[in-house]
């Protein structure tokens, strides 16, 4: 078959997954946050408020697209692309099951992390180009956030790489299915990863860039209609990608302990998605429970706690691996 055709079909499939996830996540967020606040969330449209999703999409499509007249026109138009397209591209590397992975290069983990670090630049561009005070502050905070969480995030993904001896996500999953889930030997990394994931997706304890009560809507204040929709679609996509990465690196991906890949068959996808949504649920509960950090505290947590702990932990982990190898092999 023509490789371009295959690639196009895969992109189409992943796009559907991404849109479905966006719709699901918005509904889920409203319901979970609603119940966390002792409210009911959406109930009016359709059974249990499910048609609210459609209403939201239609609303975003038919709203007037407003341009603030002193914005930096070109940057203002390009910024949603810089936010949305890379977060769509990270989906290409997620191993949904042993066969369902769109792109599977040897360094897929590294590629994924690389694409994941582009959207904050788009957020900065959006806030800067809007030429609004609130948006500018949100934009500067986005950069501050990025230089805070990125290093601990990258470092906490290292121990699974050491254990699996590969940077291919599929290989990491397979090597977990033959040993144990890496959450057990790398528990500190897992916790660190979850904290950094909250920072990366700017969820409430760390939502510096949009902080509703302080900055109206932060970087997205001057955006409206579909451009605004894309910013938030990208955010929900990142949420899913972070959960998927945590599941892949630490929670055994699409495998279940004691069941072979052949026996699992097509249910592997369901296992993977279920694990992801459990983690997303956890993120949402944290979002409903904790209050926001102050912006300087946020940076201090990143630099004075997460970074030293993760560096020291990696060295301890490597030394432990070395000692275990010595005890086993006697080299």
């Amino acid at each position, binding site marked *: 078959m023509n490789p371009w055709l295959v690639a196009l079909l895969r992109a189409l499939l992943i796009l559907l997954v991404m849109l479905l996830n966006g719709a699901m996540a918005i509904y889920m967020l409203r319901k979970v946050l609603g119940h966390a606040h002792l409210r009911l969330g959406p109930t009016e449209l359709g059974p249990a408020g499910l048609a609210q999703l459609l209403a939201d999409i239609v609303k975003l499509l038919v*709203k*007037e697209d*407003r341009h603030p007249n002193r914005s930096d026109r070109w940057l203002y138009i390009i910024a949603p692309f810089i936010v949305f397209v890379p977060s769509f591209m990270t989906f290409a590397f997620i191993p949904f099951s042993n066969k369902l992975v769109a792109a599977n290069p040897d360094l897929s983990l590294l590629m994924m992390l690389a694409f994941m670090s582009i959207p904050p630049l788009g957020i900065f561009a959006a806030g800067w180009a809007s*030429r609004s005070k609130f948006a500018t502050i949100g934009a500067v905070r986005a950069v501050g956030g990025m230089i805070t969480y990125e290093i601990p995030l990258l470092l906490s993904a290292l121990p699974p790489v050491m254990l699996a001896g590969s940077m291919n996500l599929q290989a990491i999953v397979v090597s977990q299915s033959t040993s144990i889930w890496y959450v057990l030997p790398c528990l500190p990394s897992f916790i660190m990863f979850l904290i950094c994931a909250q920072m990366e997706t700017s969820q409430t304890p760390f939502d510096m860039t949009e902080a509703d009560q302080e900055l109206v809507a932060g970087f997205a204040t001057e955006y409206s209609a579909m451009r605004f929709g894309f910013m938030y679609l990208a955010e929900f996509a990142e949420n899913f990608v972070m959960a998927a990465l945590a599941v892949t690196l630490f929670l055994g991906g699409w495998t279940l302990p004691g069941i072979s890949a052949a026996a699992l068959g097509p249910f592997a996808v369901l296992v993977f998605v279920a694990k992801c949504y459990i983690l997303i649920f956890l993120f949402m509960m944290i979002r409903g429970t904790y209050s926001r950090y102050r912006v300087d505290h946020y940076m201090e947590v990143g630099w004075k706690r997460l970074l030293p702990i993760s560096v020291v932990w990696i060295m301890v982990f490597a030394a432990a691996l070395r000692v275990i190898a010595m005890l086993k092999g006697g080299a």
Partner: protein
Amino acid sequence: MFQQIIIACFLVFGIAFMLLALGLSWLLSPTRPTKGKGITFECGMEPLGLPWVRYRSGFFVYAILYVIFDIETAFLYPWALSFGRMATNWFLLVEMLIFVAILMAGLLYAWKEKALSWH
């Protein structure tokens, strides 16, 4: 080559989808610009002063440190890969311990000099 084609396809497809959706929105949505709609939001007032506020970037020093540590992380990835494959090698471990210890000494110095707090 196949992997690159897929990634290129994702890039093109993502942009195309956005253009499509924005085009649809452009077709469906009304356009009635008024003077008020073009004004940047500032809690309902006419915007005061310059839009690009002077925002004290208290994290300027962080940004410099970030560059150093980001490069360190870039070094750690290939190291972790080869360490995972031959964990019986003492040299790999000690070498990286020395490299990281020098960097951590730098971080501790910055910490002690209060570069890691806003003041």
